């Protein structure tokens, strides 16, 4: 072995091979971040004033009052729950054909583009914006909230379904195709078993998201527990509001816990 070989140095190839670009991007990002923080204008005085106000605010939450508005809280919760369930079911049902069409390894090009377009549009607007829009179209109430959450579900679920299909192992589907199976049989035997556990997990997760969103959607007029919460705040009944928040937290945690259970079960 020669001496020259022994002293040869090695460095890991850089992600951006041109050193000028590499440094320019690093320095540019640093400068931008510095300016961004500079424009925040953190006002320490106001922060100081705000803190005790927050303390008073929190204090007025206690003790939470479940009793005096029990009827409207129960109505709100039930309305939110059916909004959540119906919008998740309808959203997932619509997502299945859209998701199949949006998978590149399944759909012909025009259908793929169309379905990707539908997904992109459904994903562009957050649920709150959709809710405001549907409240304007169909008036106040849970129907507007239901529509907003359904569209939101399609944007979420169809996209992830399509991506899961694109990531599937292509060999078993090839084998099922080679038996002379029809397209629908192929879908049922080769594609569905590969994507179903994740799809069930995601549906439960979306149920969770939709319940939380139903509270937000209610605040802009979409019905449900959000409407009840807003009323409580408007009347300065912070103890009732605290009760509502606690119930929301409890339900979200219950869904969270059961979704973990469901996911283990379908594996």
């Amino acid at each position, binding site marked *: *072995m*020669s001496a020259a*070989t022994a002293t040869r140095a090695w460095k890991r190839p850089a992600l951006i091979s041109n050193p000028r670009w590499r440094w320019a991007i690093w320095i540019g990002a640093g400068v931008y971040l510095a300016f961004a923080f500079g424009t925040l204008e953190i006002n320490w005085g106001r922060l100081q004033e705000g803190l005790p106000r927050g303390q008073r605010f929190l204090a007025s939450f206690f003790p939470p009052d479940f009793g005096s508005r029990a009827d409207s809280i129960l109505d709100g919760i039930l309305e939110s729950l059916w909004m959540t369930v119906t919008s998740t079911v309808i959203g997932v049902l619509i997502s299945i054909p859209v998701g199949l069409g949006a998978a590149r390894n399944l759909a012909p090009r025009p259908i793929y583009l169309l379905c990707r377009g539908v997904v992109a549009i459904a994903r562009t607007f957050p649920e709150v914006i959709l809710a405001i829009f549907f409240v304007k179209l169909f008036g106040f109430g849970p129907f507007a909230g239901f529509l907003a959450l359904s569209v939101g579900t399609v944007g979420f679920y169809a996209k992830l379904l399509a991506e899961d299909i694109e990531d599937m192992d292509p*060999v*078993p589907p*090839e*084998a*099922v*195709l*080679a*038996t*002379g*199976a*029809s397209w*629908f*049989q*192929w879908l*049922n*035997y*080769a594609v569905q*078993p*590969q994507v*179903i*556990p994740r799809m069930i997990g995601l549906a439960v997760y979306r149920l969770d998201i939709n319940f939380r969103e139903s509270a937000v959607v209610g605040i802009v007029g979409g019905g449900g527990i959000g409407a009840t919460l807003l009323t409580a705040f408007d009347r300065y009944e912070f103890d009732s509001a605290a009760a509502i928040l606690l119930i929301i937290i409890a339900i979200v945690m219950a869904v969270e816990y059961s979704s973990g259970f469901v996911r283990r079960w379908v594996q």
Partner: protein
Amino acid sequence: MLRLEQVVKEYKTGDRALNGIDLQVPQGQVLALIGPSGAGKSTLIRCVNRLVEPTSGAVYLGDLEITTLGSSGLRRARRRMGMIFQEYALVERLTVMENVLSGRLGYVGFWRSYFRRFPREDVAEAFRLLSRVGLDHMVDKRADELSGGQRQRVGIARALIQNPELLLVDEPTASLDPKTSRQIMRLICELCQERTLAAVVNIHDVPLARMYAERVVGLRQGVIVYDGTPEGLSNQVLTEIYGEEDWDASDTGETGPSKPDPTRPTSKPDVEHLVGM
């Protein structure tokens, strides 16, 4: 039985995987297709059932021209050709029985298959085949619980329940240990004999091909360079298929130790040479 005429496959990248293949396989013949990686073996058998569309040329199964069939005709033709894969290609979350019965999908309607209500004879045949391949105690196990050899047996049962006239077998032993490889090859050959099935078997392992096939076809860069008996596979022929190598030194497998070849200094592992680079 199977006839290929001037089959050409050119991939979109411009690679010619097959360059005018002419091949005839009579009924009941087990044919081993050997050749280096990338020679076009997999492409060739996939052109037969059109998992890969040939660019030009014709494929006949009996009198039926497969290459011009529409989609429903192709489905009916695919029922007559069973396929066995390298990585078994079972649907892992389905049970052994569902995997075997999926071989009948070409014969039953969608709703029957959806509710897993296959005709009684199909289920009986599935049980019979599973016991033939020695897996009748595994019927309700999920495919991902099985070992490699067991999975390949399920793959074989799935191909056979189609009641095919031809088996297309793609590297059936590449993921298996030497003993299981022999067992699987022996099983495939026995089954072909029992049913006078023709089979095209892609295989990496030359000794295994020698041992089990009646006829060997050597493929190199999309062209058939050898077609004859296993006995005719001389060192010269192997060199023509695979390129220069000392064949006697590797009787137990393709990757045996090789002696340095004085005429081609770059082909031998030269430690000094590599270090100095």
